[in-house]
């Protein structure tokens, strides 16, 4: 019994790293520009399909495919920012919610036309690693590791590079940053691009162990909301922690309740945290 609990917990936590990575993108965009990106799930789906296409039609190793997705998704983020977000960056929050949702509708609409809603799969395996009583799928381990590495890279970027510091400055106080001649529009575009990149990378990693459809992104987007609120909107490290907590929960809850109750618990928790401690368990950055 204990072995089963441990196995489920570890399973969930490994998954949690990837969830956290996904949520990090959402959290970053919110933290820097107070925009909730409702196209987050759609972009994750794009990451999934991009990886699938490169794997299936070019025979690339999925991890290599994911690496190639990085600059593509960054550029896509710039595009979305420039077209949909920039003009309304100072408008009431409803505008940005609807604008990003419009992008979501367009991506899902075109995606459904191209890929239909069928199930797709990246048939890739790295075997299983055995550690004592645990049997860990190689793909999940690698994905967790990748998520950790990307998080570390993000932190190095935000804290050790100039553009990164500019992003943190704009997140902290946009007007003051502009007064210090930081080009806020470019910084915002960069932040948005990084946010979409993280989403696409996470999507790509997910394909290595789960099948997916064009609509799968919305489920992960909902989870990302829960994670961001758990860890504090605007706090990327909090997103990782939130992801781990959610992953652990998803691993452990099915031991006590039928699996179908997991979303009920997740969303009730989500609403409760919003009501009781909207700044999240770790507190928001700004």
């Amino acid at each position: 019994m204990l072995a089963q609990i441990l196995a489920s917990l570890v399973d969930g936590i490994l998954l949690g790293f990837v969830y956290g990575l996904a949520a990090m993108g959402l959290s970053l965009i919110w933290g820097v520009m107070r925009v909730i990106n409702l196209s987050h799930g759609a972009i994750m789906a794009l990451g999934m399909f991009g990886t699938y296409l490169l794997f299936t039609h070019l025979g690339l190793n999925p991890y290599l495919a994911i690496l190639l997705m990085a600059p593509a998704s960054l550029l896509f983020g710039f595009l979305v920012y420039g077209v949909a977000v920039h003009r309304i960056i100072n408008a009431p929050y409803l505008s940005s919610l609807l604008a990003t949702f419009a992008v979501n509708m367009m991506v899902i609409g075109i995606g459904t036309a191209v890929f239909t809603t069928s199930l797709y799969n990246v048939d890739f395996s790295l075997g299983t690693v055995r550690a004592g009583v645990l049997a860990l799928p190689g793909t999940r381990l690698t994905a967790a590791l990748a998520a950790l590495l990307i998080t570390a890279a993000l932190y190095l970027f935000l804290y050790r590079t100039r553009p990164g510091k500019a992003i943190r400055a704009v997140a902290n106080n946009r007007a003051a940053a502009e007064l210090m001649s930081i080009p806020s529009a470019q910084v915002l575009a960069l932040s948005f691009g990084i946010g979409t990149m993280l989403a696409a990378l996470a999507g790509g990693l997910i394909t290595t162990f789960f099948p997916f459809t064009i609509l799968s992104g919305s489920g992960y987007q909902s989870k990302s909301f829960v994670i961001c609120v758990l860890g504090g909107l605007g706090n990327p490290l909090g997103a990782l922690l939130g992801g781990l907590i959610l992953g652990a929960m998803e691993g452990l809850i099915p031991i006590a309740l039928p699996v179908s109750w997991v979303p009920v618990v997740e969303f009730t928790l989500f609403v409760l945290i919003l009501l009781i401690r909207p700044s999240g368990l770790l507190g928001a950055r700004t």
Partner: protein
Amino acid sequence: MKPWRQPGFWLPLLLVLVGGGVALVLRKDTLREMMFTLLMYVALASSLNILMGYTGYVNFGHIVFFGLGGYTGFYLISQHGWHLIPAALAGGLASALLAALLGLAVLRLRGAYFALATIGINEAARAFVNNFGPFGGPTGLFVNFAVYREYGGAPQALWLTYTLMVLTTLIVVGLSYWIKNSRFGLGLLAIREDEDAAMVMGVRAPTAKTLAYVVSAFFPGIIGTLFFFKNGNVEPEDAFRLQMSIEVLVMIMLGGNGTILGPVLGAAAYERLRGYLLTSPLFKSLHLAFAGLALLLIVLFIPAGLIGWLRRRFPFLRRWLE
């Protein structure tokens, strides 16, 4: 205030009456089906407008009231043999009750946090109903065709449902006008403009917001019951579709948030456009993408919606375009 003298009042009502009445007069099934869907969205949009347009609190998960109220009403019909009318009212009351219970807590959240919470509520409700035995779990509920005999046969039942839909739409549109020009509505508008200043002026914001939330929840409950009764079944996936919720939001934005005519025209226009796109072979698979593009253009360039823009541009039209 004599509302029946004001064109801003009877113009939207007349549109609904004529639009809805044509099908009743001509007695054509296809027209009825089309108008039912259209009126359903008009009513949903008008009900959401009472909260969103007047208080500025954006409910992304408004469809939860459609789903839960509809499920309740349908459950009473299919499992307990209730008649449609009391069941629909019960559905409305169930949604209103949920809004009353949740309202005071969730309306303490401002801005985007409130919007997120409403999404969470909708998702939680769907996941819950998915597991709820009495509501049929993932397979949902269905009515035995024999139930329609109680109404004199299936066609009669469908015409009754349609008539009730027209009536509900008239009531919610009329009510939204009445609220906007009442003391209660003035308080809501003050909350929308500056909630803290409104409270300093004496507006009991928590109570007023919750009441608006409850009123906006009541009608979707009725509409849901009518819809599921007409279809003969209900499933969690159909009842709590977040996309439907957001489409209603788009309809309001298209027509003009906070106006009376706006949700009516916006819903009608969107529904017609969607119907056209779905039946056209060229656009069929891309209707969602087109809708998204339309939404983006509205948000970027005419956020006040059609009626809002007209009112601003031609102030003399204000009496007519409420």
